[in-house]
């Protein structure tokens, strides 16, 4: 049987060069190029941007029309079966057979990935404990909540010890507490388990929390592929919020030449024409003290992933 060559740590997990895919006359992916490296990668893009098709290509479920694609050193089209043995996949839908016990489902899928029965039993049980369903593992999936189902899907995606996990919307339908747990778990899988992760999500906050890299798709092309820290940067403008009206502080800062926008209790402050010798931070502090205002919040404006995403159009 085919064993993948162990990859050197720096080698990209996924390399795409000029990948194209069309269904009939509809072009879904056009000349897609990117490298995904170790860690957690967020695959972003609007609905219909081609994420699902790209995941399908990476799993070797469709034929591409052109270009080269390498996943874990395999060509998904030629070695799909051997490649999929090393991939853990969690689909977007929450369906799953309702009358089957979580344990049976996870063990079955683990066995299908080439692990013999006893080891599969052990690993399935382990995986369900890891996702916090240890006590629940003999319950039929139909009796489980959305959050529990998401965790069953996650468990079945890593129980066979894959090299790469592809998680499609792993937090969809979860409430804030469940989402926190899930993101922690994904972080742990990438960090402690050493499994690389590709995930899609519409919630950019959480992508920002958990991902090291992002690949953004727009209308079938890669519009951005970079590390998250390069994408999200800190601005030199300040956001300030007071307990009470902010206009006095605003006027004071404006008079020294800073560019100030006041909105009720909030201020957005830029350098404006103020002399470079004056420290913006100190000027703000002093203005607050001078006008006896109560400071609630002060921080540098950040460009969040949401900003970047929306800018990309």
């Amino acid at each position: 049987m085919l064993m993948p060559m162990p990859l050197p740590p720096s080698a990209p997990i996924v390399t795409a060069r000029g990948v194209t895919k069309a269904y009939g006359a509809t072009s879904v992916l056009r000349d897609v190029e990117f490298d995904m490296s170790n860690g957690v990668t967020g695959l972003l893009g609007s609905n219909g941007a081609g994420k699902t098709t790209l995941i399908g290509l990476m799993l070797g479920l469709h034929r591409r029309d052109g270009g080269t694609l390498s996943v874990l050193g395999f060509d998904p089209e030629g070695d799909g079966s051997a490649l999929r043995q090393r991939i853990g996949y969690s689909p977007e839908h929450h369906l799953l057979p309702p009358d089957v016990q979580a344990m049976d489902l996870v063990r079955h899928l683990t066995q299908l990935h080439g692990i013999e029965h006893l080891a599969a039993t052990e690993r399935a049980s382990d995986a369900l404990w890891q996702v916090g369903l240890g006590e629940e593992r003999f319950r039929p999936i139909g009796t489980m909540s959305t959050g529990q189902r998401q965790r069953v899907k996650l468990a079945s995606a890593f129980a066979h010890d894959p090299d790469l996990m592809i998680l499609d919307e792993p937090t969809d339908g979860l409430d804030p507490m469940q989402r926190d747990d899930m993101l922690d778990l994904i972080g742990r899988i990438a960090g402690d388990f050493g499994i690389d992760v590709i995930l899609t999500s519409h919630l950019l906050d959480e992508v920002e929390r958990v991902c090291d890299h992002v690949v953004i798709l727009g209308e079938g092309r890669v519009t951005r592929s970079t590390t998250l820290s390069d994408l999200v940067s800190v601005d030199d403008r300040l956001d300030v919020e007071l307990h009470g009206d902010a206009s006095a502080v605003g006027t004071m800062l404006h008079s020294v030449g800073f560019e100030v926008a006041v909105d009720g209790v909030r201020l957005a402050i830029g350098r404006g024409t103020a002399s470079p010798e004056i420290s913006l931070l100190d000027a703000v502090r002093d203005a607050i003290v001078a006008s006896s205002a109560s400071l609630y919040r002060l921080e540098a404006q950040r460009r969040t992933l949401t900003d970047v995403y929306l800018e990309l159009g």
Partner: protein
Amino acid sequence: MTSLPPPPPPPPQGGPAGSPGLAKGDTMIEAKAATKWFGDLVAVSDVSFRIGAGVTALLGPNGAGKSTMLRMLSGQARPSRGEIHIVGGDPRTDPDVRRRIGIVPQQEAVFEALTALEFVTLSARLSELDDPTSAAIKALEIVELDTGDKRRLPTYSKGMRQRVKIAQCIVHEPDVVLLDEPLTGLDPRQRLAMVELFHTLGNDGMCVLISSHVLEEVERFGSNVLVIAKGRLAAQGDFHAIRALMSDRPLRVLVKAESARALAAALVANEAVLGVRLEDSATISVEAADGGAFGLAIAALAQQVGATLIEVRPLDDDLESVFKYLVNR
């Protein structure tokens, strides 16, 4: 976690205002001790509230009773005990009340045999509008869908279907709009557009109640919330005000400053401060008993010790913290 929550966007212009037809502050949805049980399972227990025009977010963990509450409000489910009044009547039986409600159910399914225009026209016709077609065209234009699209609904993407569902909900210009998880599956841009639309509806005098568990979006809905936890109403009102009421919990603030050690020492001496902890050479975490007093003290103390304040950030004031506090109580 080290990342920052996004700054809450500015509140919508004007905020919840009354419509020409309804006096401002009129109660449009009222639950009186509403209780719903299925066998031994109590889904909603003794919930009472009133809401008027504007956007209100219905929050709660999965399984806490949000959908059951919405189904009672729309008349789909009958309260086991208590009463529901929508614009003064019973939504299950009174056709005049039903005419004034629009709903977006949670399920994704739509009539696959129809086009978008046909679906929305049907909804208009069933609401007994005089000119259903032009009402449907108008509603589709509001959600920015192509009114001349001849394709049937199965070809529509998730986001487009969601907008069709919203169009059929508002086509008859209802007074009360009930939306169950309307943002699920939408991408960030689509969600932003939807949130804007909800605000427009709220500003036009509709009473818009939206259930959601995506708090980063809810913050954009504005600050009016209903929180349901374990089947009971945990909180209602403006979430900043709710936070202020949670006086049994001290305020935690993260302060980053140059000369942090000196600032920390000064803070320890201040009576508004309960505890100080130096996280690293530039970061202090502070527990304050009184947010206002601490806010007055921090800038002054920093000035005194000559510390430049780089960042002052309350840790628990976002909706997520309020939410977690309320539902874990």
